[in-house]
């Protein structure tokens, strides 16, 4: 998998701070029953999960209580479809709670559902924490990211269908209400992204995709920043950015004209040895473009979340209320930057998609 080659690079770049903090807190301090592990906390916030965990009451005590919105787990196993609610795991993600459904046993290890092999009753983990006696079924669960995506879709539909209805009501196409708020944004996508990148004549075909992807990414970036939704970090999830990048890639490839393919396989205007030399570079470039789209959005959003969570973690690492003002001030600062980043990243994804479409449909001008 191509993505694997980027793995180490991204991880080392993104999580340096997290690892450092993690090691710094390693020496045993205090006599607390439960040691605070910022890396685990951050990773569980940044990654997907099976339930919408909102709050934990009386943490670490006998009457510990979790306030969670349970979400359905949908698995395609050897015996067909198996579904149950995430609450059946009782907030366990260490593989202790075994859920039995139709003769199959499932455990949740770090928010991944594993199916225990035939005859096993408990999961055994290797040194890195991966199960040794279980395998992963095909997982179609409505995780919190899927759930938040649907919420965002409902919000988008509410906003834009209401806006569209506003135009129908008015005789002279005068925007009012929500329409006067979204119209400048739509006109911005049209005049600042689609028209200059694709060109006056061809931009119309791509407008629906560009508008949808712009608002879809933006609203999910914003939702990712709302604390009570507990980092439903959809636009910082590589599966999400991968899907959108693949759609951009497919549209680019299918709208590529003769001129586009000629520039890839037989670059006009350069000598033949150069043509042969450029061909593999251009072919790699064809795939690097969507990969860069995927990684840029994922890395920017995830990095923002990790920084904010790391800054908040400082309070618990130092176990001092004195550090709280600094930590809150810094995380507020980063959050404000992140609010800007939500729009910038949506803009960049959209403008680069438009640029690729523009390159694919550009006519020869030699």
């Amino acid at each position, binding site marked *: 998998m191509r993505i694997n080659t980027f793995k180490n690079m991204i991880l080392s770049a993104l999580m340096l701070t997290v690892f450092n903090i993690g090691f710094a807190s390693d020496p045993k301090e205090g006599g607390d029953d439960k040691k605070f592990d910022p890396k685990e906390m951050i990773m569980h916030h940044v990654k997907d999960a099976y339930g919408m965990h909102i709050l934990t009451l009386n943490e670490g005590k006998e009457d510990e209580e979790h306030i969670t919105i349970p979400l359905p787990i949908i698995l395609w196993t050897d015996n067909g479809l198996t579904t149950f609610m995430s609450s059946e795991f009782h907030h366990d993600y260490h593989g202790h709670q075994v859920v039995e459904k139709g003769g199959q046993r499932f455990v949740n290890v770090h928010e991944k559902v594993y199916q225990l092999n035939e005859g096993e009753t408990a999961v055994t983990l290797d040194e890195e924490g991966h199960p040794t006696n279980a395998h992963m079924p095909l*997982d179609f669960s409505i995780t919190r990211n899927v759930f938040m995506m649907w919420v965002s879709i409902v919000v*988008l539909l509410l906003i834009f269908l209401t806006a569209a209805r506003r135009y129908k009501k008015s005789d002279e196409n005068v925007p009012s209400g929500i329409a006067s708020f979204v119209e400048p944004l739509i006109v911005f996508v049209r005049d600042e992204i689609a028209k200059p990148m694709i060109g006056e004549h061809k931009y119309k075909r791509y407008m629906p995709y560009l508008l949808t992807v712009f608002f879809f990414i933006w609203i999910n970036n914003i939702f990712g920043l709302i604390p009570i939704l507990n980092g439903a970090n959809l636009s910082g999830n590589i599966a999400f950015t991968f899907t959108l990048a693949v759609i951009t890639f497919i549209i680019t490839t299918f709208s590529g004209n003769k001129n586009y393919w000629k520039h890839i396989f037989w670059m006009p205007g350069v000598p033949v040895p150069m043509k042969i030399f450029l061909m593999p570079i251009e072919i790699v470039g064809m795939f690097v473009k969507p990969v860069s789209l995927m990684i840029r959005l994922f890395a920017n959003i995830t990095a923002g979340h990790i920084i904010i969570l790391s800054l908040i973690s400082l309070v618990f690492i130092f176990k001092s209320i004195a550090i709280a003002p600094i930590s809150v001030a810094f995380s507020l600062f980063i959050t404000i930057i992140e609010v800007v980043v939500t729009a910038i990243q949506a803009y960049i994804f959209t403008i680069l998609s438009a640029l690729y479409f523009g390159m694919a449909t550009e006519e020869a001008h030699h």
Partner: protein
Amino acid sequence: MDLVNPGFGLIFWTLISFLCLLIILRKFAWKPILGAVSEREEGIKDALASAENARKEMENLQADNERILQEARAEREAMLKDAREIREQTIAKAESEAQEKASQIIEKAQAAIESEKKAAMVELKSHVAGLSLDIAEKVVREELSNKDKQLKLVEGMLGEATLN
């Protein structure tokens, strides 16, 4: 490590959800909104163009007005000039006619005077002739009334009429 491993489930749901969103928004949101926006922009463009046209028309009208005014002024001028000329001509004609008539009248009068004069002359001549005859008759009668005188006269006449 699964932070950078795309999960199959999320890809599946993202793809389906995004495509549904795209289709719904394209049909029910982007089409009407973009349509309305471009329609309005066209409307604004048209309105501006027609305003420009109206302005040009106005300018044309003004130019026309100016031209018509100019023409009217020129016409008035010409008419006034004509009138003046006609008047002058009329006056000149009348003057010359009057002159002619006057000279004709004078000529006639002169001719009449001449003829009167001639007639008078003729009458005068005949009158004078008559008168002279009367006088001569009377004188002769007087002279011939006595014998002496008659003789004297004859002698005087004979004396004058010297024979060659």
